[in-house]
C-alpha cells in the first residue's frame, strides 16, 4: 500500500507538471483493494484491470521502474512507450493490462478463467472494475458466462462512489453490486475496501473456491476515490465534507494503527516501509527522466506476430 500511495501521489504531481502525457487516473484512497487482492493471489494468477489500474499492477509485483518509464512514454517502459497509464501491462506477471474501455476487463478475465480451467492449470483470474462499469452490457454477459461455466474468475468491483462525475447511486435503482450478483447466481460479499486485511481474507476465500472448481465469486469493495476522475478534475460534484470524511478512513492509517496495536510492527518499521516505497518511486522517476523516447522504429513493431 505504501508503494501504491507513493507512486500515485508522485504520478499525480508529475502529470500536473506535464512530465507524464496522456490521461491519468489515480487510485489514491483505494490502495487497500489492490493490496488485499494482490497479496492473496498466487504468482501465476491473472488480473485484468481498468483505466485506474496502477495500484493493481503494483500489488501484483509489476516492476516500478518499468511502469514509471512506461508512464513517461520511454522506450524502456514495460510496453516500450506504446501502452501508457491506461494500458500498462505485463503478461509475464499475469497482468493482462489496464484497459481504457469501461467493462472490457470482465470478458477478458472470463477468457483467462476459461484457459485456466480447460488447460487444467488451477490459476485464478481477477477482473477489476468500477461500480460504474456494472451498468455495461459487458459486465452482465461476462458475469453470466463465468457463472454457467463455473470459471475460476473473481469479479472485484471497486465501489468508489463515483463514475466519472456522477454519483453512481443515481445511475441505478439497485446500487448494491452484491444484489446484482445474485441475479447471475454468483455468490458475493461486501467488504470494507479500506481494510486491507478484510479484502485479503475475502480474496483468499474466493480464490480457494475458484481453485476447488466452485466457480466465480464477486467482491464488492466499498472505498472512495480521493482524487478527481482524472488528474486535473476539480470535483465540483462532490458534496462538502465527503472527501474529508473518507480521508479519515485512510487505508494506510487503518492498517498502520492495527499493526501497531497488535505489535506486529513498530513505528520505525512502518516508517521504514514508507521511506523505502518513496525511495523506490523517486529512483524510478529519476531513471525514467533520463531514459530516451522510444526508437522511432518502435511505432511500426508488434502489429502482427509471425
Amino acid at each position, binding site marked *: 500500500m505504501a508503494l501504491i500511495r507513493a507512486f500515485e501521489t508522485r504520478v499525480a504531481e508529475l502529470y500536473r507538471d506535464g512530465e507524464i502525457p496522456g490521461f491519468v487516473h489515480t487510485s489514491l484512497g483505494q490502495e487497500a483493494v489492490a493490496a488485499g487482492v494482490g497479496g492473496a493471489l498466487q504468482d501465476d494468477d491473472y488480473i485484468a484491470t481498468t483505466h485506474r489500474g496502477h495500484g493493481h499492477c503494483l500489488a501484483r509485483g509489476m516492476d516500478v521502474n518499468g511502469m514509471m518509464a512506461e508512464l513517461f512514454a520511454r522506450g524502456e517502459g514495460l510496453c516500450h512507450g*506504446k501502452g*501508457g497509464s491506461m494500458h500498462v501491462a505485463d503478461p509475464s506477471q499475469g497482468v493482462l493490462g489496464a484497459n481504457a474501455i469501461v467493462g472490457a476487463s470482465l470478458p477478458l478475465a472470463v477468457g483467462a478463467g476459461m484457459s485456466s480451467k480447460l488447460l487444467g492449470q488451477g490459476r485464478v483470474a481477477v477482473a477489476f472494475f468500477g461500480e460504474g*462499469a456494472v451498468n455495461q452490457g459487458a459486465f452482465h454477459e461476462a458475469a453470466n458466462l463465468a457463472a454457467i461455466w463455473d470459471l475460476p474468475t473473481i469479479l472485484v468491483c471497486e465501489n468508489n462512489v463515483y463514475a466519472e462525475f*456522477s454519483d453512481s447511486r443515481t445511475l441505478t435503482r439497485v446500487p448494491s453490486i452484491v444484489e446484482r450478483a445474485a441475479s447471475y447466481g454468483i455468490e458475493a460479499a461486501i467488504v470494507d475496501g479500506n481494510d486491507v486485511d478484510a479484502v485479503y481474507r475475502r480474496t483468499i476465500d474466493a480464490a480457494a473456491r475458484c481453485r476447488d472448481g466452485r466457480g466465480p465469486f464477486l467482491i464488492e469493495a466499498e472505498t472512495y476515490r480521493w482524487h478527481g476522475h482524472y488528474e486535473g478534475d476539480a470535483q465540483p460534484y462532490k458534496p462538502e465534507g465527503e472527501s474529508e470524511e473518507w480521508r479519515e478512513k485512510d487505508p494506510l492509517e487503518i492498517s498502520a494503527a492495527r499493526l501497531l496495536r497488535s505489535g506486529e510492527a513498530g513505528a520505525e518499521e512502518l516508517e521504514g516501509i514508507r521511506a523505502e516505497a518513496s525511495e523506490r518511486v523517486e529512483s524510478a522517476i529519476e531513471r525514467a527522466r533520463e531514459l530516451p523516447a522510444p526508437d522511432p522504429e*518502435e511505432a511500426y513493431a508488434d502489429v502482427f506476430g509471425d
Partner: protein
Amino acid sequence: MSSATEPATEIRYIDALNAGMATAIEEDERVVLIGIDVGASGGIFRVTKGLFDRFGPERVIDTPISEMGFVGAAVGAAMTGLRPIVEIMFMDFVGVCMDPILNQAAKLRYMTAGALEIPVVFRMQTGAGKSAGAQHSQSLEAWFAHIPGLKVVMPATVADARDLLLESVRDPNPVVFVENRRLYASKGDVEADPLPLGKARVAQAGDDVTVVTWGQMLRRCLAAADEGPASLEVIDLRSLVPLDMETVIESVQRTGRLLIVHEAVQDFGAGAEIAARVGDQLFDELRTPVRRLGAPSVPMPFSPDLERALLPTSKAISAAAQALKAEG
C-alpha cells in the same frame, strides 16, 4: 480574451458546438441531449457546459455507462417524436454500441419504406495527437460512410462546428457527427462563410495541386499551402456523406493533381473512395497519380513522439504536393 484584430464573433470551436446545441434545444422542444455526464458537469470536455442549467434535466439527460442502451434508446426516441443528440464520448467507443447505429438507425427508414423517420445525431469525437492511446484515438469515419443510410459530418472550422451541428439536428436522417478534440480550443469566426451540409468548401484557392481533407488535417493542409512554392487548392470536405464530388472534380480538372490527406489510417480509409472516383472520372485529365497521406496501418501508440511521427505533418503534406507537381 480575443485580441484586437479578431472580429467580435471570434470564438472557440468548443463554444461553437455548445452554441449549436443550445440553439437546437431552444428552437425545437423535441430536441434532447443524451450522454454520459453531459448534464450538470457539462461533459468530460465541457462541450455541453451550461446546457443543463439552462434547459433542465428533461432536455439534457445524464446516463449510466451503458452506450448500447442509451444510444439504442436515442434511436427509439427518434422514431417516436424526439430529436435526440446523443454523445458517444470517444469515437472508439462505438465498439460497444454499434448495433443501434448500424442495424437500427441506418436501416429502419428503408426497411419500413419510409414510414419511420429517425432524426438522431450521434455526436462523437476523435483526434489523435494527445497521447490518449490506441483505444482513444481512432478515426473511424470510413466505417460509417460505408453504411447506407447514415450521413457523416466532420466540421473542421468554428463556423462549421456550430452550423453543421444545427443542420444535423434539423436533418430528418441519422447523422454521425464527428468532432475533433484537437480543434476544441481553436478559435475562429463563427459567422464566417456559411455553406449548407453536403457542400465542400474551397478553403484555399490554388492552381497546382488539389488537396482534399477534413477534420484536424485541414489546418495542416492550409499550413502546407502557406509554405509554397507550389500553389495548393485546399478543399475541406465537411461531410463524407453526402460526398460533394462536384467540387473535388471541378478543382482537379483545373489542377490535374490530387492529394488526399486524412488523420485516419490510410489503408481502406475514406481517402481511397475519393481516389478511386477521381481516378475513374478524370482518367484522361489527371497529370499525375492521385496520392493519399494518412496514418500508417498501426494502432496509435501512447508515446507523444511516436504518435507525432505517424500523423501527416504540414511538412509531409507540402513535400507530397511538391513531389506531385514535380512529377508531371
